[in-house]
């Protein structure tokens, strides 16, 4: 009888202890961040590292305040492979659904590379109501959908630059070239993907056509192309003064090498992803001197001394991973997105997706890329002043293998220099 009482007593004690400890056990449960992107590509690899870095920093500082308690972040990931040529959108979407169902993330980050996959994936995100802070795909189509059906698609946010804001930077660079050297004949070369074509079309429509430029040709190349000789010959034959490339495929560095070896007398200014990082000089045999390249977000592959937060971020990344960031698109907004999510959760004190969305909409953060706020289409606002908006930057490779910030004026370290052998039209 005594023994029976003892057992019942122990059981009651355990139950009491459990009821007291349970909230704390639950409090220690991590908040899962699902990183669903093309992990095999440079931008994906470095973006997930940036996410992990932010998560480690936040966890080391005590985690995320949710109501009365604090909880750590935890990163789960899946390779969507959508950046690889030939991978169909439905396959990428399967990956997106898989991570939502299996890992139960509170929020998704980075997201698909291809805008085609993001736009198609918005229905899955709406179905499961998981907020996504995208940092790679750039076509403005997702914003249009959010504005058309805000209740359904409100879970999708974009912290990185979009094609519309990129247009502002490309147009600004072209304006600076025109003002400095009097150039007004351009040959446009893009990758045959939605965001790149949309960007080129918008620069033509919103800047070239209105500013008296002559667009000598617009060529789009399938992903994987590694011979650009025809377009370069056409650019030379038609007297192009500027070549504007818009590419994010690994082979696009070949375009610059060919531009160099074919001695095309035109300045190259635009976006070529492989040229963003410091390693590009060595990889492309030093044949990239004079090229102007856009870094999509300040802090991704390039910092500006005029914004110390960007320099600190790059130094922390290098210290943690032993190498510099090489991707000019993705890492900085991915890092920032984790902090933006943390602030949104703490603002509302809830992990409910609708509450998180409400919290994200109130974002106003001064960080690595400048000031981040989201507009009605849930796109982070980019401009030329880091005190007011997020910023991109344009840098120029020198003949000695250095990158100098030349645009926007708020971050510029020097004026644009003409490549060796090229003469000003002024």
């Amino acid at each position, binding site marked *: 009888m005594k023994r029976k009482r003892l057992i019942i007593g122990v059981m009651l004690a355990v139950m009491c202890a459990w009821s007291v400890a349970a909230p704390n056990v639950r409090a220690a449960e991590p908040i899962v961040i699902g990183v669903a992107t093309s*992990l095999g590509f*440079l931008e994906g*690899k470095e973006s997930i590292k940036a996410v992990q870095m932010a998560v480690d920093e936040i966890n080391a500082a005590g985690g995320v305040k949710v109501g009365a308690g604090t909880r750590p972040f935890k990163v789960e990931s899946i390779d969507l492979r959508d950046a690889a040529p030939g991978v169909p959108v439905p396959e990428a979407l399967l990956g997106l659904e898989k991570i939502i169902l299996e890992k139960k993330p509170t929020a998704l980050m980075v997201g698909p590379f291809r805008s085609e996959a993001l736009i198609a994936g918005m229905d899955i995100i709406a179905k499961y109501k998981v907020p996504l802070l995208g940092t790679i795909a750039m076509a403005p189509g997702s914003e249009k959908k959010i504005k058309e059906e805000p209740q359904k698609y409100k879970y999708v946010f974009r912290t990185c630059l979009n094609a519309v804001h990129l247009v502002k930077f490309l147009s600004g660079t072209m304006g600076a070239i025109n003002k400095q050297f009097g150039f007004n004949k351009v040959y446009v070369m893009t990758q045959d993907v939605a965001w790149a074509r949309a960007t080129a079309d918008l620069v033509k429509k919103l800047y070239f056509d209105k500013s008296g430029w002559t667009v000598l040709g617009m*060529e789009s190349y399938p992903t*994987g192309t590694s011979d650009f*000789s*025809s377009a370069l*010959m056409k650019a030379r034959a038609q007297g192009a003064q500027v070549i504007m490339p818009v590419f994010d495929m690994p082979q696009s560095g070949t375009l610059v090498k060919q531009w160099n070896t074919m001695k095309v007398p035109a300045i190259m200014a635009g976006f070529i992803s492989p040229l963003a990082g410091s390693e590009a000089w060595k*990889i492309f045999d030093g044949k990239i001197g004079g090229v102007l390249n856009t870094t999509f977000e300040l802090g991704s592959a390039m910092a500006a001394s005029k914004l110390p937060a960007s320099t600190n971020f790059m130094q922390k990344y290098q210290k943690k991973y032993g190498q510099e960031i090489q991707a000019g698109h993705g890492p900085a907004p991915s890092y920032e997105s984790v902090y933006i999510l943390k602030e949104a959760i703490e603002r509302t004190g809830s992990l409910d997706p609708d509450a998180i969305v409400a919290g994200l909409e109130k974002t106003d953060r001064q960080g690595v890329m400048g000031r981040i706020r989201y507009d009605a289409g849930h796109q982070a606002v980019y401009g030329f002043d880091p005190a007011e908006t997020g910023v991109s930057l344009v840098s120029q490779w020198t003949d000695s293998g250095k990158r100098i910030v030349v645009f926007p004026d708020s971050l510029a370290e020097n004026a644009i220099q003409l490549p060796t052998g090229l003469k000003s039209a002024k």
Partner: protein
Amino acid sequence: MFAGTIVFALINSFILILMAIGFNLTFGISGVANFAYGALYIMSAYMSWTMLNLLHLPFWASAVLSIGFTMISGALMYRFVLLRVRGQALSEVIATFGIGLAILELFRYLGLVGFEYTLPVFSNESFMIAGAYVDIQRIAIVLIGLLLVLGLWLFTHFTATGLAFRAIAQDERTALTFGIDSDWAATLSVSFGAGLAAIAATIIIPLGSIAPDEGYDVLIKALAICIIGGLGSTGGVIVAGFIVGFAERFTDTYIGSHWTMIVSLAAILLVLAIKPSGLFGRQKELEERI
């Protein structure tokens, strides 16, 4: 610009010929359609890159070693996999395609994707030819392509192994009666085909970068050239290389770059519709006549 287009079309033709000639050699001798061909091409490039960048071997040593390893891989693939399904065309295709898929997807799984994965060019110099600057690497591709085609012709006409290859290709049963071991010849043909893929990778990859997707692209291009030229016909490969090479560059220059990819696929469809055996192929001629 017209003359420049011809120069780059010529270079493009030799790139295509180099990409296809190994596939054609293997099929012409052993009848094996090696669908792992693109994977072997990329594998040799990754091997060169590894030896060059991680083991810090000189470029030429890396290239020679990777060509050697790729040839050995081809021979092993035949001895341990293809020999068991020899003569069953569908099984051969499935087996080689499976091996190729496994190799390429392994590289992707290992994260070997990015512009840093490339091989060095022979020289950074370029010369003016017909009004266009052409770099040494592209000139080298044309010269090496010519040497390889000539070397293959000499090999198959003046060496015992080459003559054995031709004998097997012409009539395997008769060749057997002359004491030629068909399995030995087939092993060598797959190995030599893999070696030619590795040589092509060594000189073509420096123009772009090493990527798993490039393996699929090379396989499609090799297939396109061989089907148009006629499977097993070296002359056919050369003619088809020139047809597609010129068509691609002229399409690029005068119609639009986004149409370029369609050219080779449209050429396959056209040839299959008009002459299913290809321009110089003899595989199905009898059936066609009937």
